[in-house]
């Protein structure tokens, strides 16, 4: 069975990798990586934000953060139109909760297996949340995180040293340390002491107006990394320590390059004599998203997934089946439009950033099949102008941001009548509506879980049709 995956973000890549591991012939058509490239460096599966979930961050005794498992269960309980409710069923009797927990655990393990050869691990678990600092001075309750920020759990640290790098843009250690301290006061957990430590880097290490990308690229060279190691070691040699290394955390700006972060961190830990981590951050302040993208691309190559760098122009259909996609002819190519046939197609084209949704002719539409779109309340929104789906207030939910397609439990997009439109068309990732990745920040979690589920549904379809 030939399978086509449309969309090169985490949902599409995870699905393609999973399908390849089940030995199905899979082609990934990717015009770009979409919102995956904007990752902050954490992979959150359960809704962390108290404003969205209505949950407190801490448990009733107020001594610890709610675990990812508890927040996942609360999400299933309170969000009937969330993609998780579609995947695992409504809560009740604990079956949905344990199915969700198992799926999350195995998904994280699969992703870790694909990324690990590129020196990027997925760290974390369902039993304890991490408290990670971002470059803007907010603490983020995080379920899983990628190597780099993952090591920076602020719980259990008695002393946090916020490193300043002179001249580095988009990173201000002093306000960052102050903001982190204030965040702790707001959460009400025991607060570590925050200190700002300047790293004695030689003049000329930070160049080009302090661009974090340039500095990150420098640490990708052995020479640049040695300079950073020497600065960290020099800073820490002269200090008299009151707190032992395990309880001390050196918080670096996200400058540890685009690859091999695992090895760099080990060397930095040795130089500093304490735990070392990066702050979370989105580009251009952080290379975290590009690390993930690079590691996914390497995994796709390794697993033998055929990747077509092209944009899909149209899907061909016959009755209740999709047959093929037509690709936009490449720039400067004299060849006519390319056509790829497949027995199953997975749409993981994302939302507005990925190109799965767009506003045209005055209304929001799904771009390939004009699938019906629904907001989180279940109201149909396709055809409405985007500016009618947002409110001027920054508070509260925006319908536009939770809109997407609706699927059945096998992740097949539903038509207006509530029946799957096609037997062999599946959807994964942000294209599925019912949650708002921009405020919930669980986009990667949903992408991973729906991508893997779609892959196993496609494998099931292949079995049904062959046998």
């Amino acid at each position: 069975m030939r399978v086509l995956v449309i969309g090169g973000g985490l949902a599409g890549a995870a699905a393609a990798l999973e399908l390849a591991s089940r030995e199905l012939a899979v082609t990934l058509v990717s015009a770009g990586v979409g919102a995956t490239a904007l990752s902050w460096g954490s992979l959150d599966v359960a809704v962390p934000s108290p404003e969205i979930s209505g949950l407190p961050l801490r448990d009733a005794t107020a001594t610890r953060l709610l675990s990812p498992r508890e927040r996942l269960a609360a999400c299933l309980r309170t969000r009937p139109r969330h993609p998780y409710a579609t995947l695992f069923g409504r809560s009740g009797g604990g079956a949905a909760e344990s199915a969700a927990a198992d799926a999350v655990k195995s998904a994280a393990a699969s992703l870790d297996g694909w990324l690990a050869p590129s020196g990027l691990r997925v760290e974390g678990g369902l039993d304890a949340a991490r408290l990670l600092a971002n470059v803007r001075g907010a603490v983020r309750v995080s379920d899983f995180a990628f190597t780099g920020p993952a090591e920076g759990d602020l719980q259990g640290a008695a002393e946090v040293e916020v490193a300043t790098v002179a001249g580095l843009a988009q990173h201000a250690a002093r306000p960052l340390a102050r903001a982190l301290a204030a965040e702790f006061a707001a959460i009400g957990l025991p607060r570590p002491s925050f200190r700002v430590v300047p790293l004695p880097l030689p003049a000329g290490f930070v160049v080009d107006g302090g661009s974090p990308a340039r500095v990150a690229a420098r640490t990708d060279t052995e020479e640049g990394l040695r300079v950073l190691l020497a600065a960290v070691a020099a800073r820490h040699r002269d200090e008299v320590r009151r707190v032992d290394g395990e309880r001390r955390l050196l918080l670096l700006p996200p400058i540890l390059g685009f690859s091999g972060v695992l090895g760099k961190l080990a060397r930095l830990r040795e130089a500093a004599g304490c735990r070392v981590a990066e702050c979370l951050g989105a580009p251009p302040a952080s290379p975290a998203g590009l690390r993930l993208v690079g590691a996914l691309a390497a995994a796709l190559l390794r697993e033998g997934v055929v990747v077509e760098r092209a944009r899909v122009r149209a899907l061909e259909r016959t009755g209740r089946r999709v047959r093929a996609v037509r690709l936009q002819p490449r720039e400067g190519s004299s060849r006519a439009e390319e056509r790829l046939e497949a027995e199953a197609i997975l749409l993981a084209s994302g939302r507005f950033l990925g190109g799965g949704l767009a506003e045209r002719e005055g209304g929001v539409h799904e771009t390939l099949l004009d699938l019906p779109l629904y907001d989180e309340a279940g109201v149909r929104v396709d055809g409405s102008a985007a500016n009618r789906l947002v409110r001027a207030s920054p508070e509260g939910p925006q319908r536009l941001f939770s809109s997407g397609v609706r699927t059945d439990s096998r992740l097949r997009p539903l038509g207006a009548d509530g029946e799957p439109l096609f037997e062999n068309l599946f959807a994964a990732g942000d294209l599925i509506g019912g949650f708002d990745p921009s405020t919930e920040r669980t986009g990667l979690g949903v992408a991973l879980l729906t991508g893997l589920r779609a892959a196993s549904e496609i494998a099931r379809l292949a079995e049904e049709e062959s046998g």
Partner: protein
Amino acid sequence: MIRGYRGFLREFSRTGSARAFWLQVRTGVAHIVRTGRRPRGSDAVALFLENYREDGIRLPDAARDALRLEAQRCTACGLCTEECARVGGAPHLDPMDAVAAASRLAIDIVRLALPIADAAACSACAACEAVCPAHIPIARVQADLGSLGAMAQPAGIR
């Protein structure tokens, strides 16, 4: 005229750009000379294009309009710049500048002079395109800006 002159002063004090200065001289002084020395035609647009062909000025065409619309999807995430740095692009190349320039192509032609020099340094490897979450054809944007290079880099001025 006076407004244009103020705009130039602001631009010049902000950037100290010789290129911006040169463009200002061209549009301010050369315009009078050029339009004066040629007979008035009946078609003002054709005359304008004729006078400024050597500067690379063309009418906006449908392809460029489409490109400009694509450039307006830019969310200024900066990934293209990061990727360019990662793959070892030219020292001061900033694809995001080019995208920003393209999206304001019709608005402010003098300011355009600043990032256009980058377009010439671009090797069109398109690594930036591969990471652009908004799927902007950045290499095409750079090439398009590069085609305006005649205007940005008049002979003898760098």
